[in-house]
């Protein structure tokens, strides 16, 4: 004999107690539900499962309520398909899939590169189609706005590097070599790599997320439908802007890092700014600056390409957006360090004072 209100809200406090009490009722019992005032589909589900998913033999119930339970029973009789459990075969498929995915990444990346070259050809022939507005907006975003953070990090790295080297050099009385170490290390190696890591984290992720959200909200499709080339309007400006901005950022960061090193050297070793600046061009050939700038441009190109590649791969859901943003940053940094190693080998005989 049940009565009262059988709705989710009214049952929410003691559903568990009720469930066990209902389950304790013997199957042949007489059920009287005529006094039930309100019954919603949760109440129906509770009763249906308490009855072991079949109608009890002796049941007295209002027609309206019987219909509610009946609807639930009929819906429950057509079970929802379940996701298949993960088996050994799936593991093999996963492995193969990963390999294929890698290949697809590669081909997509090459295709993106090809499209970009095509776009470049287009804009070179028709100078009016240069997306200048987008390029300058991107330059501001990835270049100018990145200056404070790269300066801060550069300065601190310069100070630390100089401080640690000074401790060692003092022990050998080789104080003035601090200029060689800082000059070569920062201009040639540390500056470009440091900026790349910062920019990959800062601008690369932003580019991927932006393109990704545009995929989620179908903005990319809307562009295509208007006959606007998405690579020309979305990818090219980012790639051009970052390729241009990175060498400048490298120059800026290396300068600030050198300044940090200079300050530290002055405090530790009593080397004057004047002496430092005078010695620098003598011990560090100018070729190193060119190498640093070239690295900056190449790294910028890579970061932007990787960011756009992953951004355009985002499927319209949040999971894919976060996965691709992560992948974009990790891939960009890894790639930058790989390419840096290639640079180191290729330029091993250039700009190193003997």
């Amino acid at each position, binding site marked *: 004999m049940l009565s009262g209100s059988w*709705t*989710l*809200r009214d*049952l*929410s406090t003691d*559903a568990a107690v009720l*469930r066990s009490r209902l389950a304790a009722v013997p199957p042949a019992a007489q059920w009287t539900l005529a006094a039930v005032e*309100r*019954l*919603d*589909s*949760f109440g129906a*589900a*509770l009763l*249906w*499962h308490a009855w072991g998913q079949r109608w009890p033999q002796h049941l007295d119930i209002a027609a*309206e309520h019987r219909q*509610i339970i009946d*609807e*639930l029973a*009929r*819906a*429950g009789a*057509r*079970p*929802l*398909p379940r*996701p298949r459990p993960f088996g050994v075969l799936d593991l093999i498929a996963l492995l193969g899939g990963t390999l294929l995915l890698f290949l697809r990444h590669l081909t997509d990346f090459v295709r993106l590169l090809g499209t970009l070259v095509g776009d470049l050809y287009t804009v070179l022939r028709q100078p009016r189609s240069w997306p200048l507005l987008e390029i300058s907006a991107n330059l501001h975003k990835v270049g100018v706005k990145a200056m404070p953070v790269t300066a801060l990090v550069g300065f601190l790295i310069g100070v630390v590097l100089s401080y640690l080297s000074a401790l060692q050099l003092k022990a050998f009385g080789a104080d003035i070599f601090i200029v060689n170490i800082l000059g070569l290390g920062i201009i040639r190696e540390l500056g470009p790599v440091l900026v790349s890591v910062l920019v990959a984290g800062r601008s690369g992720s932003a580019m991927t997320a932006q393109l990704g959200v545009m995929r*989620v909200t179908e903005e990319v499709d809307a562009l295509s439908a208007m006959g606007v080339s998405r690579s020309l309007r979305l990818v090219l400006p980012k790639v051009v802007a970052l390729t241009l901005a990175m060498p400048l950022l490298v120059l800026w960061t290396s300068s600030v890092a050198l300044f940090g090193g200079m300050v530290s050297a002055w405090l530790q070793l009593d080397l004057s700014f004047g002496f430092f600046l005078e010695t620098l061009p003598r011990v560090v050939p100018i070729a190193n600056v060119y190498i640093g700038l070239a690295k900056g441009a190449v790294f910028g190109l890579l970061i932007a390409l990787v960011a756009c590649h992953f951004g355009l791969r985002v*499927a*319209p*859901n*949040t*999971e894919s957006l976060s996965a691709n943003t992560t992948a974009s940053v990790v891939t960009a940094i890894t790639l930058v360090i790989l390419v840096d190693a290639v640079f180191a080998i290729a330029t091993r005989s250039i700009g190193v004072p003997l």
Partner: protein
Amino acid sequence: MVDMRGIVTRFGSNLVHDGIDLAIAAGEIVALVGGSGSGKTTLLRHIIGLTRPAAGSVALFGEDLLAADGARRAALQRRFGVLFQQGALFSAFNVADNIAFPLRESRVANAAEIRDLVALKLAMVELEPEHALLMPAELSGGMVKRVALARALALEPELLLLDEPTAGLDPDRSAAFVQLIRTLQRRLGLTVVLVTHDVDTLAALATRVAVLGERRILSYASLQDTLAVEHPFIRRFFHGEHGRRALARANGEP
């Protein structure tokens, strides 16, 4: 159920609402109509406490949602279901998990019951069990609406807020939607606020019509009385060609 007084909303220099009073009694089906951009969605967001109006007060179930503390507010929030204009399905979950999510969160039903309830809600909105494993990105626009409706219904709400529930549905599905809301209303005494541009749905369901325009409520009355109001917007909305035909259909005229 809902009691709004003197609502003022401003986005920058754009004054959207200027002194809106609206009281919705239990068991009513209120249709909120108004031109595009007249602030219907914004008004719904005020009702469910997502945004706070610049001035005025909103009482939901007799309480100020934004003033209630954590547990109290959560309890109030479980009593209404919302269908957002764009569906707002969780894109990382499949259809079944989207519908099951509020049920799992409330921790009342057990797994077997949830399965049956999800199947029932899917059947209610005329989706097939096969659709349960699809991801939101794989659904058509109308299917997104129906899954979102199923999710809004999951917690057996007392108050249902629907932002353009029939936009993107074919006429058959719109009719089925009207039938569904009627049935639920009869069984559980549901209160419904629906934003709609569809005169067919409105004529079939609404017990009262609130017309939003010129930053305030132009009229808030039964459909018959609303039709008698002399206002250019109301005339165009209901007495335009499309509106006239829909009203004729609703009245059973050929």
